[in-house]
């Protein structure tokens, strides 16, 4: 797996950038061409790359973090890291998987920090909102409460749950993104579901 450090080390236009694998089954001819141009720092190619994938990145961040004022910032950081890392991308995965990987690397520490920081606060809020939950019936309220429940899930479990259920990725793809064995990913998914069931029952 490519770590956040690795991403930061590479940069656009590097003379040592590896060539894209011509046999890559993950990229279409158009994508290979776009990447080649983007690697030279061509503004138009970078813009096209950004336009094609900003929706995916932003939506994933939203699903992972919920409504959050930092999403704009994080989207920019993900693309900045992607632009800097273009030179190291060899075409061994789809572009979208590669971007999920960068997003996961970018958000992982943030999720853990927040989870630790907000644990007490979230539990307190949870207690209060659970007492009032009996009067909530609407679809919007259910969504809000679902979001709050999701935030109580440990970051490792939440990542897997979001990638599997919201992004529609397979266990193998998630394994590639997170750099963990498929068995670990499957285990995390089972634990995430179980924990969510418990949280929902307790609500």
């Amino acid at each position, binding site marked *: 797996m490519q770590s956040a450090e690795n991403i930061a080390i590479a940069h*656009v236009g590097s003379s040592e950038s590896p060539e894209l694998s011509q046999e890559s089954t993950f990229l279409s001819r158009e994508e290979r061409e776009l990447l080649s141009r983007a690697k030279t720092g061509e*503004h138009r190619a970078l813009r096209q790359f950004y336009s094609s994938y900003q929706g995916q990145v932003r939506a994933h961040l939203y699903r992972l973090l919920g409504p959050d004022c930092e999403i704009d910032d994080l989207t920019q950081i993900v693309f900045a890291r992607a632009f800097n890392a273009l030179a190291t991308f060899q075409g061994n995965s789809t572009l979208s998987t590669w971007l999920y990987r960068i997003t996961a690397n970018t958000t992982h520490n943030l999720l853990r920090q927040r989870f630790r920081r907000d644990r007490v606060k979230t539990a307190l809020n949870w207690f209060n909102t659970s007492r009032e939950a009996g009067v909530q019936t609407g679809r919007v309220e259910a969504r809000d409460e679902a979001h709050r429940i999701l935030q109580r899930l440990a970051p490792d479990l939440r990542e897997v749950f979001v990638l599997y259920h919201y992004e529609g990725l397979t266990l193998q793809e998630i394994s590639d993104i997170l750099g963990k064995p498929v068995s670990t990913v499957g285990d995390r998914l089972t634990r995430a579901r179980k924990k969510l069931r418990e949280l929902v029952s307790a609500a």
Partner: protein
Amino acid sequence: MTAETNTKRYSCHECREDAELVMSDRATAAVRGFYNAHLRECRDCRKMHRLLYALYEGPVVPPPPTGIAEEKEFHAALRRTREELPEPWYHKWSLRAGVTAMAGAAAALTLALFSPSTPDEIPGTSTSSVATNEVAPTDPAAAGGIDHPAQSYGRVLGGNAAVTTSGSTAGQPPANTDTFPVGTRFRVHDDDALQVGMVGKIVANFTPGSDIEWVQATPSLIELEVHRGIAAVRYDRRPSDPILYVRTPSAVVRVIGTVFTVEVDEHQETIVSVLRGQVDVLHPETNSLRAEVESGDRYEVSTSSHGNVGLTEVAAALPLSNEVDGDSADFTDALALADGHIPNSWNVPGLSDDPTHRTLINIPAPTAEPTTFEVPVTRRRPGATSPVEPAHEQQAAELVIDDETGDLIEHLMKDVKATRGKELNAALDACRNLYASQRTRYRAARCLSDFISQYGHEPAAVEGYLLVGMLRMDYALDYRAADKAFEEFLSRAPRNHPSAELAMYRLWLSATEDGRISEALTRGRRYLARFPNGKYVGKVLQRFDELKAEY
């Protein structure tokens, strides 16, 4: 065991165990039946179901930013790209080695010299981005164009003006005809107006009495300066196209892609009106945001007040209204043009959505005489000289459209009269009348398009394709449709047709303005080979130094 017994034994525990199976559509019909029956009776389980359903369904994601917001985010990402670049190796080395203070100072100096700067640039104006590897030309006239210097020219589509061209077009004199370079200033006559196209992407109408200068064209920025009068602009910007700035004495209008007007009145006050899309109005010195003006809004900078777009602005912009709704696959549809109605995509408060009522006369609360601005195009004056004089500092010249289209219509009329009857004649006559009038000239395009669809198969009507292609290219910037029309003309017309040269020139021009440079070079070579002494040789060589060596 009966179904009733099973239902009774199906408790909350079983319901919660099965919830996930039901939601992921993996439960059997029987389990689903028990589950639903239990939900009907158990309030707590209904709540659990609703919550779990919301969890598995996921949040509703808001749409990603578009237009200006998207552009801002992209440029912010580019800025971060520079900021996140790793430190150069020599920096790390110097720190690890614990070099002397002198060495540290030297390293710091080296860093200062070679590290990419991270200025707080306005989104859209960044031309020194590490990620983009672009270098901003500081001399507007020496700007490299968009992708290729051949694109950094403008063309007069219609009208008259006195022009001055700055002397800094080093080595690239605007040799002849209707083509002008960056650095050209237009002083439009009081009784006339001027329509121009710039870099193959922007169409503008300068109203009578306007004083407007084309200041800059770089890969990321095009800049106009309005000293006086109204500039109506249509810019259907594609994601990688440059941002447009329109500068006035009291504001800067930042455009991502839209139809709008900028007026500088006699008191040097600025008024910005938007018909489609959105623009940002910035402070001219600090570039801080003053206002976001949306479609239908008219914004007065001096008072910071918003109002509704009115007749003056719509009339000024109407010659830019050539739009086709949606993608047309059919050839004749692709050549369709606006017919003088205000497009549905333009937001004019108080104007009906009914297309038949979307005309100037139906705009509420008129603020000016519409006829002042409508279709400001004039014919070539007899004996007129070259429109743009060679580049001499502040040398004024009379700019007149090179009226190829008018001549073509006359030629077509003669052909048709010689070969066909009254019906065809009448149809073409109507187009000619539209074209002849200053007020209705741009509507001739629609008329000709109809003419083609009805009589295009007639050998005598072959020039109609050429005409429609030219108008489609000039007013709608639809180069693909124009290409089709020119190719159709060349395939139908005999090889020695007198307009074959014009068609080949236009094919070259279309590829050039559309930024298809390799195609333009091929077409340019083909033209030069076939017409080595042709009347457009100068125009071709003016834009491509590569071809000069071969010629």
